[in-house]
């Protein structure tokens, strides 16, 4: 008879990701748990869903990355474990878990242990504030964006901890590189997000997504990317996010051809797997933020596609961004540290700063034709000047070669 008192809540495809939460709450209410326990249980189930989804996505991505890179490189990639190598992540996981955990004698063992844990936790925390669907916002925080950036900055700490605590020289060099790179690229990353905050008037990530909801002329989505300032800021965000996620061509902290594996050199077994995991979760977080800020988050790209559950759109956009990272990784060599820093401070940061007045003018002039006329030159002219200056002073030249006479 107690079953009759607590009916199971209805859910749709849209709120499918809520199912674990609803299930746990229903079960707790069924056994007559107090309200605070029901609330805690529901939140835990919600968090568990997010962690579970992104950890499976991590497993999938580790396979997809290897397969994609293999195809780019004219190879087959992993194809032994399971159908088309689908069980490769499982095999990798078993291998990682059964490997010996080596701690160098000169290592600070506590920091050495804490670093891989500390790289996973902030990435999961950052994913927690992400609006993954219309009804799927794990933590709808008012200062979500601020929380994201402050938590995301913690990963730099753990990378440096790993480098310092290993008591070895390649990790030390990797940590030095990581600190200078991540601090430099955090600036354009955050500055390019400021325009979005100004236009939306909120730091809440779900507000930012809702704000990008409409369509121009009924078919061009009103995403921030399709405005002049948003396009510039989105591009800067994209480049800076590659550096922030330590991806090629900005993978200097790992720089395998120079410093072996950077901060991860002295890690083995599951600690190494945690670094690997933290890196991919960070990749999801930063790419997901890019999707939220500039690509309309969970909004459908065309008006007649509104019936598709919104979380599918979020993950589809995430997949597109991440596949572009893989493409870049398969095709580009790595830049040198001085070129990397010069690019950040001479190109990205000035252009990112310009997107702020552009976004202000965009709002001030009413987001219409006038706004386009005002903001496009404001961004385009400095960009052209910067490009000319950069090419004149620093661009590599093409050369011609002679042949000996005899």
């Amino acid at each position, binding site marked *: 008879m107690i079953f009759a008192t607590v009916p199971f809540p209805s859910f749709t495809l849209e709120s499918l990701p809520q199912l674990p939460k609803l299930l746990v709450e229903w079960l707790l209410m069924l056994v007559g748990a107090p309200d605070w326990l029901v609330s805690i249980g529901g939140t835990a189930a919600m968090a568990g869903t997010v962690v579970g989804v992104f950890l499976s996505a991590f497993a999938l991505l580790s396979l997809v990355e290897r397969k994609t*890179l293999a195809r*780019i*490189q*004219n*190879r087959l990639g992993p194809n032994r474990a399971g159908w088309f190598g689908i069980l490769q992540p499982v095999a990798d996981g078993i291998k990682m878990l059964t490997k010996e955990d080596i701690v160098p004698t000169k290592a600070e063992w506590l920091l050495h242990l804490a670093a891989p844990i500390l790289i996973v936790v902030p990435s999961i925390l950052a994913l927690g504030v992400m609006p993954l669907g219309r009804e799927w916002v794990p933590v709808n925080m008012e200062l979500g964006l601020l929380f994201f950036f402050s938590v995301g900055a913690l990963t730099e700490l753990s990378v440096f901890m790993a480098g310092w605590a290993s008591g070895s*020289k*390649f990790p*030390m*060099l990797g940590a*030095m*590189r990581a600190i200078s790179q991540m601090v430099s690229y955090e600036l354009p990353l955050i500055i390019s997000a400021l325009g979005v905050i100004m236009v939306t008037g909120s730091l809440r990530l779900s507000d930012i997504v809702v704000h990008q909801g409409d369509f121009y002329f009924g078919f061009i989505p009103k995403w921030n990317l399709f405005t002049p300032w948003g396009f510039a800021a989105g591009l800067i965000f994209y480049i800076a996010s590659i550096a922030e996620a330590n991806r*090629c*061509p900005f*993978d*200097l902290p790992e*720089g*395998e*051809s*120079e*410093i*072996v594996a950077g901060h991860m050199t002295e890690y083995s077994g599951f600690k190494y797997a945690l670094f690997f995991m933290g890196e991919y979760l960070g990749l999801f977080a930063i790419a997901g933020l890019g999707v939220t800020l500039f690509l309309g988050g969970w909004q459908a790209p065309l008006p007649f596609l509104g019936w598709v559950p919104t979380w599918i759109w979020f993950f589809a956009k995430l997949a597109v961004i991440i596949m572009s990272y893989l493409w870049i990784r*398969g*095709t*580009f*060599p*790595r*830049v*040198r*540290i*001085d*070129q990397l820093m010069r690019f950040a401070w001479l190109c990205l940061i000035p252009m990112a700063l310009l997107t702020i007045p552009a976004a202000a003018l965009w709002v001030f002039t009413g987001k219409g034709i006038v706004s386009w006329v005002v903001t496009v030159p404001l961004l385009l002219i400095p960009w052209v000047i910067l490009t000319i200056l950069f090419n004149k002073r*620093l*661009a*590599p*030249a*093409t*050369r011609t*070669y*002679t*042949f*000996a006479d*005899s």
Partner: protein
Amino acid sequence: MISDSSMPYSAPTLEPGEDDDQLLRVSLGPQHPSTHGVFRMNVVLDGETVVSLKSVFGYLHRNHEKLAENMTYLSSMPYTDRLDYICPLTNNWALAHAVEKLAGIEVPERAEFIRVITAELTRLINHTAFMGFILGDMGAWGSALMYAFREREKILDLFEDLTGARMMSNFMRYGGCRNDLPAGWADRCSIVVNDYGPFLDELEKFLVGNEILLARTQDVGQLPQKTLINGGITGPMLRAAGVNYDIRKVEPYGIYDRFDFRIPLGAKGDCYDRIMIRFLEMRESLKILRQALDQLPAGDYIHPKAKIRNFKPPVGEAYARIEGPKGELGFHLISDGTVNPFRYRIRPPSFINLTLLEDMCLGLDLADVVIILGSVDIVLGEVDR
């Protein structure tokens, strides 16, 4: 280190055992992803800047020269395959050339043609693999390498048909080659040669059109011509700096004086020039190959009177050199009239090209060291012997 007043950078060095708050001593290798084998560099870094770099070789030392002095001239032929294992056929030729000079053996015309064809194919595979390796050193791990190796594999298939082995060929003999070209080999070789030009165009477009590659390699690791000549540098590395020195032209051996080809010269001698010179050399090699395949005569592949067993060259001494893909490859033989050489000495191009590594790297970044080492194009089998 060869002293030169134009050295770009000088800073305090760190003595062994001494420690410093500013300087970091790093041992790159012998276990390192991009030292091209078991090569070690003791680097002292100031931040990321290289303050001092000491090369340590010998991890792959196999006592090749002393072994060869205790076997017959022919027995050391397979060992030369293992010197520079990327291009065994030029090593074979260099030894055969030295023995022929020592004993005054004639080589039939067809054998000379086969030697030129295999040597130029070897130059192609060496330079192609170089493109892949240097991109790997730059961080494009695998992409360029796999495409380079795909083309290399086509030539290795030809070698397998001809010599029975992809890499360890053991093909040259005194007075010619071990066997004749198999039926239809020349036609298959023509197909590969004709397909190679488009592949090079594509590879060059992708590599040279990449701004990161240009930024990473231009003005990195150049040295003045004088230093290079004093250091005994040969091969593409010397020609990239604009010195016209190619043994195929300077001291033509075999039948190279019959072919029409040019020697490309660079201007600056940095890593970018070294890459581009190798591209241009590959195109010249293709020209030689086309001519050689067109003119390939019939006849003996080995001199009919060449003595293989119980071969005793007269007492004497000979130094013969060829233009290997990596530079001047010379063999110095002293004979005392017995079946074994009294002295057997190799002049390996990679080893001598590597001696100026420190001069090229000082004052540059750690990331540049890896590219410079890649641009020297070493094979440790030849460096350590």
